[in-house]
């Protein structure tokens, strides 16, 4: 009759304050105050990013590399030329979609980190759809691939959400376990039933066919995934901030008991949000197959799902902010090759920098509401 039978909720508002910025002094009042509050959400992450870059500079200096050259090559590799811009944008496209996989459930207070798993099963399902329709016109094949990828990815993450809601299984751990399971399924299928016998060194599925490949956006050497990523992010923003569903989700994320009192079906909210989240990552996997790889193999597990977690946290789970942040992180990824060639840094240096940015951004959570400058005005 005591502690052990406490009602179990997923009310995380008490211990995940960073997921939901508490209502700021001026929210919903004067425009000036709101602007000052918004500035806080730009300035503090920017400071955190700068701090991480500075620490990374010191880190490479310890290995005898010139930090000034590091920053120069990073800029050149990411945004220095038209070519590097296109490289950056190509990498940003999947990141927008995988970031949504963390950002949408975050509105409900769920910490989903399994975007990589949804990405992989989405890619697998999309490949299977294409291989199942050998004679269909390309448009139909691509549509089937997108639907299959989104359905598979959505189901993958919705499963995590359902386990959280109906069985009380921690969604962070379950979604990460599902990444490893998805990876095993991918390896099993491309080495077994789906294997193209002519792929000797790198077991792969059959190719989806050149006719079915998705091309690039006119005038850019960037595939259509970028456009769909931006559309998805805008739709997610509208869903969260302009619709009753989004309002209900944010209420449930802030206080699950209050949500139940006003009669919100929390389980339904969780399932829908998680399905949409996984669908976004699954769509990213579909584009990786249909616009980049052309077949399913172990190359698909390139870590877009994991970087997406960082993008979502850096954007404070705001779908519109995800777009520029994904471009930024895409730029960092894109510059990795140049750092390898010019400075002789290992390819993992991008991972180190990402880790530093992640830690720095989380540590900066403690700064919100501490600066008077963001409270004045209006």
């Amino acid at each position: 009759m005591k502690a052990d039978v406490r009602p179990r909720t997923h009310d995380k508002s008490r211990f995940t304050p960073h997921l939901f910025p508490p209502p700021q002094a001026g929210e919903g009042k004067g425009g000036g105050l709101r602007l000052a509050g918004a500035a806080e959400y730009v300035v503090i992450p920017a400071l955190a990013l700068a701090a991480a870059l500075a620490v990374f500079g010191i880190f490479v200096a310890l290995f005898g590399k010139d930090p000034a050259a590091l920053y120069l090559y990073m800029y050149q590799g990411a945004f220095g030329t038209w070519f590097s811009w296109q490289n950056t944008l190509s990498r940003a496209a999947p990141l927008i979609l995988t970031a949504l996989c963390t950002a949408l459930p975050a509105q409900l207070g769920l910490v989903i980190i399994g975007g990589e798993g949804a990405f992989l099963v989405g890619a697998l399902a999309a490949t299977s759809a294409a291989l199942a329709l050998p004679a269909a016109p390309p448009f139909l094949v691509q549509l089937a691939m997108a639907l299959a990828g989104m359905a598979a990815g959505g189901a993958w993450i919705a499963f995590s959400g359902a386990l959280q809601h109906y069985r009380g299984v921690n969604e962070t751990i379950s979604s990460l376990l599902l990444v490893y399971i998805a990876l095993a399924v991918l390896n099993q299928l491309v080495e077994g039933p789906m294997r193209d016998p002519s792929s000797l060194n790198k077991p792969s599925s059959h190719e989806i066919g050149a006719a079915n490949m998705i091309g690039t956006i006119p005038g850019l050497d960037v595939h259509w995934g970028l456009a769909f990523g931006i559309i998805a992010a805008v739709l997610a923003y509208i869903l969260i901030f302009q619709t009753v569903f989004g309002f209900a989700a944010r209420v449930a994320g802030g206080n699950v008991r209050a949500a139940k009192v006003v009669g919100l079906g929390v389980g339904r909210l969780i399932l829908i949000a998680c399905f949409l989240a996984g669908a976004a990552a699954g769509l990213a996997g579909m584009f990786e197959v249909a616009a980049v790889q052309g077949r399913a193999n172990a190359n698909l597990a390139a870590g877009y799902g994991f970087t997406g977690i960082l993008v979502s946290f850096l954007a404070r789970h705001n779908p519109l902010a995800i777009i520029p942040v994904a471009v930024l992180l895409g730029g960092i990824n894109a510059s990795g090759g140049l750092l390898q060639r010019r400075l002789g840094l290992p390819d993992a240096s991008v991972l180190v920098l990402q880790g530093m940015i992640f830690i720095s951004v989380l540590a900066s959570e403690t700064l919100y509401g501490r600066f008077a400058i963001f409270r004045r005005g209006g």
Partner: protein
Amino acid sequence: MADVGWWVVPVAVLGGALRVSTPFLFVSLGECITERSGRINLGLEGILVMGAMCAYGTSYLTGSPWLGVLAAGAAGALLGLVHATICGLPRVNDIAVGIALMLFGTGLAFYLGKPLIEPSAKILPAINFGWWSDVPQVRAALQINVLFLIGVALAPVLVWALATTRWGMILRTVGESADAARAMGYSVNGVRARATMLGGFLGGIGGSFLSLYYPGSWNEGLSSGQGITAVALVIFARWNPMLCFWASLLFGGAAALGPALQSIGVNQGYYLFNAAPYILTLLIMIITCSPQRTLIGAPAELSITR
């Protein structure tokens, strides 16, 4: 089919359980300590990889695998300190910091470990408990590493220490009620920092086993999720170090299933059998968790069970 019989499989699974369970054991004991203080460190996955790299590097440079084990522990404790320092700041969430540490630790290990993929380092010794048998499979199964024995001894010691020592009581007080601990004059953040560092130390040692005994080399695919599985294992073991030991054996056995079947020529479903620990973890969590109540034995301050 090979000329050996099916009976080899249970023997190989048992031997694999004794071998493969060691990282699970150390990481889960470490995480157990951290979680009993009311904080969860998901970064143990990164700590495990970092520990594996440091152990291998140190053993390669000094020629002493035991120095490698110590270096792995130190690296783990250091990363634990990073986790604890950031979580000690107000309004910072421990789960998120753990995710960040997971990515950071893995990245850092890959960065620093790049030159270590080629060279071979001196690995840890094993004691041969299978001398009485003529069957090579039994002998192989009973090659038991000293680290495993240390882990086995550590589990009951931790049970005793948590239950009866002053240190254990302070740790549990902080984990059950931070307010009560504060009222008694203990620093909640300080105790949690020490618990996280100790957890990181053990997690790092778990990693050293991977690179210095089984599989016994350093590469970037060395750990794939053992750390996070071990975190889930602590929940399954109800935050009890002795149960952590039995759960580690179970998970080790599950992880050994794939290689054991492969050894008798069953190659079908190899990858799926390798995913057995993750599937097992998920199933166990589905069966044992409940949405209606907090888990029995859960530290009251722990965020994932509240």
